[in-house]
């Protein structure tokens, strides 16, 4: 009896400890975001106030309007949205198809080709972007949505992630589906993809984050007199050299991360599930 209560007490302590650790982690992550929001609502002269303001004395929302209108964030957000959605859709489709082939089909040089796919993960973007820029320009895609999105429509990471998910589908299911007269296409669409949904969601979120936050490629692949700027480039232009601009730039930063927050809230469950998938067998 005392042993059981001791065990319960130690479990309670452990829970309290993990909650404390999680709270500290959350504070570390959230404080910079909180200050970004607070400072975006301050007047420029209050920015350097000592000690820093924790609550804006009189919230100034007009900087959001400035960032959205004269900072042209509305236009940049549209460009970013089109580019990001194309990239995410492209990566999901190509990864599903390629991963299915690597997981369920038999064809010559399968292992070698898979290793080549994995090999692309080892090459940093900085090595390939000049070549990509050359290719994109020679196709006449400089400063177009094609130029922004096409180089990123396939990803070795996605193929790897989904192949692992597909491999966890029991062989029996595939055999049962074959007996029911399912071909590869129907098995993929009706069985494999629904079962791999957590991994698909994870891949979707990761590629969304990566595409949305891109800087170097959209900077280099656009130009001319009417550049097709994405939101990250627009943000850099907001920064400027004037201390007056700081709340505007911060307001822009808040606007730019709103889509990411919405996305994370929607897909939170799938993301967590995909992280723990396969952890317990």
């Amino acid at each position: 009896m005392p042993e059981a209560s001791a065990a319960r007490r130690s479990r309670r302590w452990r829970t309290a400890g993990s909650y404390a650790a999680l709270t500290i982690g959350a504070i570390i992550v959230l404080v910079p975001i909180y200050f970004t929001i607070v400072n975006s609502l301050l007047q420029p002269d209050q920015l350097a106030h000592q000690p820093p303001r924790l609550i804006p004395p009189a919230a100034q929302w007009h900087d959001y309007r400035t960032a959205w209108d004269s900072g042209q964030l509305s236009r940049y957000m549209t460009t970013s949205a089109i580019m990001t959605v194309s990239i995410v859709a492209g990566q999901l489709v190509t990864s599903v198809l390629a991963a299915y082939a690597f997981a369920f089909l038999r064809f010559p040089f399968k292992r070698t080709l898979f290793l080549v796919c994995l090999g692309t993960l080892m090459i940093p973007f900085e090595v390939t972007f000049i070549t990509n820029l050359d290719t994109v320009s020679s196709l006449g895609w400089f400063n177009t949505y094609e130029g922004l999105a096409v180089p990123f429509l396939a990803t070795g990471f996605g193929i790897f992630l989904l192949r692992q998910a597909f491999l966890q589908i029991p062989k029996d299911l595939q055999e049962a589906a074959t007996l029911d007269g399912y071909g590869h296409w129907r098995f993929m669409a009706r069985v494999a993809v629904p079962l791999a949904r957590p991994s698909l969601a994870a891949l979707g979120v990761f590629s969304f984050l990566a595409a949305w936050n891109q800087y170097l490629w959209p900077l280099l692949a656009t130009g001319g007199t009417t550049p097709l700027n994405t939101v990250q480039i627009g943000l850099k232009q907001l920064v400027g050299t004037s201390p007056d601009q700081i709340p505007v730039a911060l307001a822009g930063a808040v606007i730019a991360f709103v889509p990411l927050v919405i996305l994370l809230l929607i897909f939170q469950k799938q993301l967590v599930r995909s992280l723990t998938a396969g952890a317990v067998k």
Partner: protein
Amino acid sequence: MKLSRALAQAGAAVIILSGSAVTATALGAMSGTEAGAAAKLPSCNLSALAKHKGVVNITFWNSMTDANGQTLAAITSAFNASQSKVHVTLVSQASYDDTWQKYEAGLTNGQLPDAVQLEDQRTQAAIDTQSFLPVQSCMNAAHYSTSDYLARPLDYWKVDGVQEALPFAVSAPILFYNQLAFTKAGLNPASPPTTLPQMMADAKALKASGSGMGLVLDPWHLETWLASANQLFVNNQNGRKGRATKGVFVTKTAKQIFTDLNTLVRSGDATTNPASGPSEFDNLLGIGSGKYGMTIDSSADLGTVTQVLGQGQYPNVKLGVSAFPVLSSSIKGGIEPGGSGVYISSKVPAIDQAASWVYLSYLCNPQR
């Protein structure tokens, strides 16, 4: 045995010596050809532009923001309206660094502007791209007079006697101070510090009266303190007589500067902030909030600072500006200019190059 080893060592020494002699001559020969290049500059075809019928459209990449950007836009539309030969389209990039990255990438796919504004320290890198027409060519062709330019900024963009770019948006580090804070500290607001030791003393007085000094960690200021004592930062006349190959600021003077700045910061009289990133303006903003009584920053910020002050948000600030506090009043050096040079691309048709010259010389005309 011993003798042979000694001989071998001597032999090696001779080889090393002769090796360095070879490099020395090679360097000499190289700088010789570079000096020769001044004689045969690429041509700047101004007469083709004069004969050309119709409008030549050119683009100018710039990195101007805020007040300065509006001024540039106004000058450019005045230029476009003033004549019918050349039409300039401005393309503003987010920053000097972005402009440079884009320019380098543009070298591979040909997406280059006709004229570009590059930050001051890119001079040698710009020459190395071999994609610019030295403005010297057009100056010669147009018999352009530089008599109304200050010699120092002009020389700053001159390498081996060739004017590579025209100085544009030239700035200098200056002292910004709050006259009210000076009065409060018992200092005379009409006589701000003119030397580094005076600046340290005034910072101490400001600190004692509740403010202090904001110090932005910008290597440009270090260069300027060295220049104010007639000292170089890198060899070959700061790279203006040939390629700079090493830093030469390990001197007693430089050590003194670092010691002084260290004292200033360690005593708490000055607080530092980085020159880039989210806290890059803390030294200027600190003057507004009353945290600092003075700071050093670029004269390029003056327009924006007065604009912000004019809005009346800072009743506790009465701005004073004065020259950069030099190392010592007894050594007369100079202030190192900063800002940017404007370059003409050589990768575009000759007629566009000539058009760029017409625009840039208009832009750099002191009457603008």
